[in-house]
């Protein structure tokens, strides 16, 4: 039995074994062409972006791939949930306590300090997998021979990690925000009171996720080896902040000020202090004489530089 060549067989024809061997059998139901839309480059970029976001949280992979991201994201939300929960119980029992008030450790201004380590761990765990996997297994030629350009691949992947981090950072802020509005004696008044915090919340979340994602990806782009990338990312976050702390303890003045800007952790601490008009966690940041906007500007420049490094790497990488 054979299917007449040229004419694609009807889909309803019974499967016919044409050839078989150790690799399996070829069932011929006729090849169908594709006449539908080809959405091109933008659609491919969007699809890669969402694929990256899903990979970050292990969606579409095995259960084990979900453990690390969900534990980290869960830990990030936990203080907010606990804080709001206690505040709600306190409010119900008539105690107009100050659970989320200005002395509480769980406030908008302090939350960055609570979660930034978790966000960095998320980067160190996921960024190497997002980029290294395709390098390790030679998948890049398969990507670059499609509707995507090299730059699109790099941008979609960086944005994908940044968006995943943004979700992780903004979720506890959202819990706090909604919690504070609902716990307030008059929710409408509460909302009015909380609204001014919306801008610094979003700005800080964007800067944190943007800068950490950009730096992590810039490092991960340079090695197919997962372990190297993970160590490199942790080192890039940790070592500068240690150096800054040591240097600032020894000397002061403008040199110390400038060195603070070399540490992503301190820069984000600075933007947080600036945006929420609060005191900084890092001594080096508190001691610096900069206008707070310098930290914001540095974070933006850092994002631009790190993304440029990643793009440059992907424009040159062999495929």
């Amino acid at each position, binding site marked *: 039995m054979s299917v007449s060549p040229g004419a694609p067989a009807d889909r309803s024809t019974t499967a016919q074994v044409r050839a078989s061997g150790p690799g399996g059998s070829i069932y011929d139901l006729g090849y169908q062409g594709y006449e539908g839309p080809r*959405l091109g480059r933008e659609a491919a970029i969007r699809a890669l972006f969402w694929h990256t976001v899903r990979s970050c949280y292990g969606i579409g992979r095995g259960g084990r791939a979900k453990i690390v991201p969900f534990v980290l994201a869960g830990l990030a939300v936990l203080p907010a949930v606990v804080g709001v929960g206690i505040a709600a119980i306190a409010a119900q029992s008539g105690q107009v306590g100050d659970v989320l008030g200005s002395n509480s450790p769980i406030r908008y201004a302090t939350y960055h300090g609570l979660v930034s380590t978790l966000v960095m761990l998320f980067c160190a765990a996921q960024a190497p997998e997002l980029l290294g996997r395709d390098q390790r297994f030679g998948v890049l030629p398969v990507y*670059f021979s499609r509707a995507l350009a090299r730059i699109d691949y790099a941008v979609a992947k960086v944005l994908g990690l940044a968006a995943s981090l943004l979700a992780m950072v903004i979720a506890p802020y959202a819990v706090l925000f909604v919690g504070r509005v609902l716990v307030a004696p008059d929710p409408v008044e509460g909302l009015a009171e909380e609204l001014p915090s919306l801008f610094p919340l979003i700005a800080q979340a964007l800067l944190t996720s943007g800068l950490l994602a950009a730096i992590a990806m810039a490092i991960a782009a340079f090695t197919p080896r997962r372990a190297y990338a993970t160590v490199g990312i942790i080192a890039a976050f940790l070592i500068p902040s240690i150096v800054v702390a040591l240097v600032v303890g020894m000397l002061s003045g403008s040199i110390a000020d400038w060195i603070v800007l070399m540490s992503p952790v301190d820069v984000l601490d600075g933007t947080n202090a600036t945006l929420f008009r609060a005191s900084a966690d890092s001594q080096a940041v508190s001691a610096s004489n900069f206008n707070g906007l310098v930290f914001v500007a540095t974070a933006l420049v850092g994002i631009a530089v790190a993304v440029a490094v990643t793009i440059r790497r992907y424009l040159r990488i062999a495929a």
Partner: protein
Amino acid sequence: MPLISLENLTKQYRDGVTALDQLTLDIEPGIVGLVGANGAGKSTLLKLLLGLIEPTSGTARVMGLDVRRNGPAVRQTVGYMPEHDCLPPDASATDFVGHMARMSGLPRSAARERTAEVLRHVGLYEERYRAIGGYSTGMKQRVKLAQALVHDPRLLLLDEPTNGLDPAGRDEMLELVRRTGAEFGIAVVLASHLLGEIERVCDFLVAIDAGRLLRAAPLGTFTERTGVLAVEVETGSDALAAALTGRELDVVVDGRWVLVAFDGERTYDLVRDAVAELDLSLVRLEQRRHALEDLFRDEVPAA
């Protein structure tokens, strides 16, 4: 309009190696064999056509579009099967091929349908949900072919598709390639260093050597024109060669063999007469089966 049009295409790598040297060539749709020894520039040419690497000079057009300027548009309708491993072992064939369909710009639902369709076409159906890491080499090659076909390209570029396959796997892969090209109207460029494969599948042949074009012609004219009659004699091959040269035949001596450029039926007569005249003992007289190979032996005369 030719399917592929190359003009003075040159690629020089940074270490000074010239992989392609002023290649000018038009390729029409069909199943085209790109043949050459390892390092002849086959992979380089395919990568240049995809815009994976930049040419040092010259232009490459695919379906009328300049590859350098319209990369994404060209690649949207081109499928590429790389020579080396390109599959993540932890993904299933369905996930990988489906993802790559979307990377070619297919909508989500279409990507899913095409993935099922194309995996069935290459003969992976039952196994498609299993992780690729557990696949045999033959199955992996099929996944590689499937990802190149999933967006129903107009042009398929295959780089050594039978690499690592056993003879049965080779046959099946070549049959798949042949059917894809012949029955579904997808133009195919098949790069291989194995002439036997090219002969079986292709109808047009492009031979390159050291980055230069040796010849581009329909397969038929190739074998015909490069036909070589091999004459084995016990002794006196040099004398025979001299005698045949005197009869206006192109010959080359290779030990006990005298290779004669085949020039129609009269070649047999001339060889017979020369052998009889010199009173040599003729061991064998055969038309070389893989005559194509002689393309790459510069000592063999061009007919």
